[in-house]
């Protein structure tokens, strides 16, 4: 049952600096971006939070731009903006592809990349892309800005290095060498939460990331090393299966996720085979 709106408080900063001060000074506040996730919780009455800092009007956080060789994507960039961005299409086509498979058009118009990261669901569609792209998360608080590698950003199920007084302001992605590959296996053809989602890059050293098969999105580092060292795909798939810890839940089974993850790895490897 829905949470009473009157029990909520929405703080409305006009600038990033003001937002950061609110996060530092106010008790128990949570940043609110496109609301496509938090408001679902509100409508189901499952939200624990009652106080929000509304970020939607902070236009500078929407920017998608090249800084030298680095693609910088503002945390408030919507999925629609990712799909439409020339830079994203050129530099990180697998991100545009992931964005296209998030929800329907209405959700793509509101949901943001930063929101997907902060939400920290192991099933987040864009997260394996960021992991496979070796992205960097830019975190800012009232007192400092710091950059942490996306690969180490999550510390456990729905837990991350972000402190409550910090905002994700942007994601930075350096040049990605090699063929990019993305596949989401959802519960239906559209508007679905992923059962297994994989993003991978076939470069000199392969990079492979999976969602929905562990408490957080994960990189298959041992599988990557094996493939990089010339292991056969059967051996690599066996290693991959040992690197994931899928579970049974409302959407799928551990057994299905394990087999599909292995099959997707094979598919990636054959789809991106040289020549």
């Amino acid at each position, binding site marked *: *049952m829905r*949470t009473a709106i*009157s029990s909520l408080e929405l703080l409305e900063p006009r600038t990033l600096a003001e937002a950061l001060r609110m996060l530092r000074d106010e008790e128990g506040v949570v940043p609110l971006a496109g609301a496509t996730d938090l408001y679902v919780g509100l409508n189901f009455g499952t939200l624990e939070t009652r106080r929000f800092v509304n970020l939607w009007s902070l236009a500078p956080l929407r920017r998608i731009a090249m800084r030298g060789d680095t693609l910088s994507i503002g945390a408030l960039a919507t999925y629609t903006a990712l799909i439409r961005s020339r830079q994203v299409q050129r530099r990180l086509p697998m991100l545009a592809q992931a964005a296209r498979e998030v929800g329907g058009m209405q959700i793509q118009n509101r949901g943001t990349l930063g929101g997907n990261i902060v939400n920290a669901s192991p099933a987040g569609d864009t997260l394996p892309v960021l992991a496979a792209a070796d992205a960097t998360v830019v975190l800012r608080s009232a007192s400092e800005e710091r950059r942490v590698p996306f690969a180490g950003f999550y510390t456990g199920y729905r837990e991350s290095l972000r402190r409550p007084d910090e905002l994700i302001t942007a994601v930075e992605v350096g040049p990605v060498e090699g063929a990019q590959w993305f596949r989401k296996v959802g519960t239906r053809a559209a508007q679905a939460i992923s059962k297994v989602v994989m993003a991978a890059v076939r470069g000199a050293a392969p990079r492979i990331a999976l969602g929905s098969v562990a408490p957080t999105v994960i990189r298959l580092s041992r599988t990557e090393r094996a493939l990089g060292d010339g292991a056969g795909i059967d051996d690599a798939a066996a290693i991959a299966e040992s690197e994931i810890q899928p579970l049974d839940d409302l959407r799928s089974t551990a057994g299905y996720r394990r087999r599909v993850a292995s099959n997707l790895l094979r598919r990636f490897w054959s789809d991106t085979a040289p020549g």
Partner: protein
Amino acid sequence: MAVPESPTPNSHSPAVGRSVSRKDGLGKATGAARYADDLTFPGMLHGRTIRSTIACGTISGIRRDFDPGGFTVVDWRDIPGRNVVALLTEDQPCLVEREVRHQAEPVLLLAHESREALLGAAVHIDYLPGTPLFDPEQSPRSFKDILIEKGSVEAGFSKAHLVVEGTYRTGHQEHVYIEPNGVIAVPEDGGIAVHGSIQCPYYVHKALVTLLGDAVTQVRVVQTETGGGFGGKEEYPSMLAGHAALLALKARRPVKIVYDRVEDMAATTKRHPAIVRHRTAVDRDGRLLAMEIEVILDAGAYATLSPVVLSRGAIHAAGPYRCPNTRISARAMFTNTPPNGAFRGFGAPQTEFAVEVHMDRIAEALDLDPARLRDRNALRPGDSTATGQVLGQDCSARQVLRTALRKSGYRRKRKAFAGTGRGIGLSLYYHGSGFTGSGELKLGSRAAVELTATGVRILASSTEIGQGTRTMHAQIVADALGIPYEQVEVAQPDTGVVPDSGPTVASRTCMVVGGILERAARELRERLGNLPPEEYFRRHGPVRVTGEYEQPGWIRWDEVAYRGDAYATYGWGCDVAEVELDRDTWEVRPRRLTVVADVGKAIHPALSIGQIEGGTAQGVGYALLEQVTMRDGVMANAQLTNYLIPTTLDMPAVDVVLLENPYPGGPSGAKGLGELPMDGPAPALVNALRHLGLDLRSIPALPEAIMEAACGSP
């Protein structure tokens, strides 16, 4: 398929057979149509239902943890009449007194002017929990047992060349009308009026009269624009209307209750899960010699409509096939889960899934093409069904089958797809039109036409729930009167105004109620002589003709022995499904569905096609996507994020072909249509997967299950 072009509207051209403009089209396309939640009444309160959170036990205490200011609170002691939801068996309380039989059972009702205050109110219920029963096969209690026997199955089995056995399972299915259940109860003139999203206003009327007893002098039920029903608003609104009425009577103010999606999915009825066992004897050529069928439905905690759902399921269980020796035994079992109820198809989709998948397994065992096996056994005019009903010329099983094979290119594709990732499969099915046996006679439905200053008006309690009732009834009446369609209006179903035309269920609204209206309109036409209706009205004032159902003289039905003419006629269908399987993920992508349906007469071709396309989509969901996950006796995935119905991208292209083999007793030959398309898609899709070598016997056929069929258990 393209909608047939309508000729330019012309006051003299008949309306039947033309895709005239829907009566409710403009309101719906502009947002002007008013649904229950769009209405407000002066002084209106909002209502909320406090529900049980255990599946079985007794209530030991209720604690209200909120400031009672401004609240109206109702429990079972506030019921002035009898604490039952009056339907078939009066076993279900409107509000729990002490014993809880399922999760989400209504216990306490709250109303308040402010939705916000209502949302903030906390109520705690203490229980002495019992041991719940969730497995229908372990249940000692049956709500209904049915035995249908024809010939001697023992004799049939003794001559068998081959015996094929199998067990088939279907899951719950949630209606997912996009408008959740909602009503508003309004005190008026010493009584109560309930406005709401309702399929059967007179069912609600009867329930309210029983519940409210002497506390009211009159009860009126008014259907508001209804955002889908599919059976889900057949019996459940009787419960909901009772709740709103109790609150409204106590508060002496109007009370609106509209469920949110989670509550609607968790608390209201669903399609019955089924377990169907088949044992079939065939001869060397695949002719059916004996069919022994056992049907078990999971009814849930109260009877609701389960006995009649079981009845229809049992009658259809042998499929549209000739078989001299048949025994069908069927039971609807008690479990501690929310009661299951009416859903488009009403038991037949479950049993026809089973028999159709079983037929493909028989074909496989005989190394015979499934289409050939069906053609050999399909019912022909003059054949008798499992209940011994001898079919007339309106039997079209072989016509729909042969048309579907031709239109879909089945034979060519069946060969061409072999060894690829594609499969093609089919299903042959039928659906009885109207109530079973002498049910229509017992209903004694009435409907009327009356003159107005501008033409005529239809008075019927048949509801428009999207299927086109208003439009189709107006077409029938316009032609019977020989006046333009535009001159016929349709009264809003309001039990204070319209007679009881029976419920809007069982594919009876066109064939049965349309037939009553056609006769009434013909009688009115005779009265008018040569005068146009508006002119007759001007000269002579109001005239109303009320028609009543007349059962065709030939119908014979023995309700005890389950023998005789189960239905006045049947709709017939054949689906051919083409699928593609992703071998990495076991995701099924349906590519094309060819649906051939004999509907007797398409009164409105575009509406008829729309019914078939929509029913087919529900069938695709039933087959491949829609899984209700029950945990501790309640739906654990009661959100649209986790209970998935087909989106645009999940639906294949659907080619609909309408055949019109008339039923002489229906208006212009029309048969029942609404439920027919629900029966075919699931078995056709599963049989297409069988063509790919996958032995699936349960739905939904989710990728996880397909993986197991392909690779064994992980």
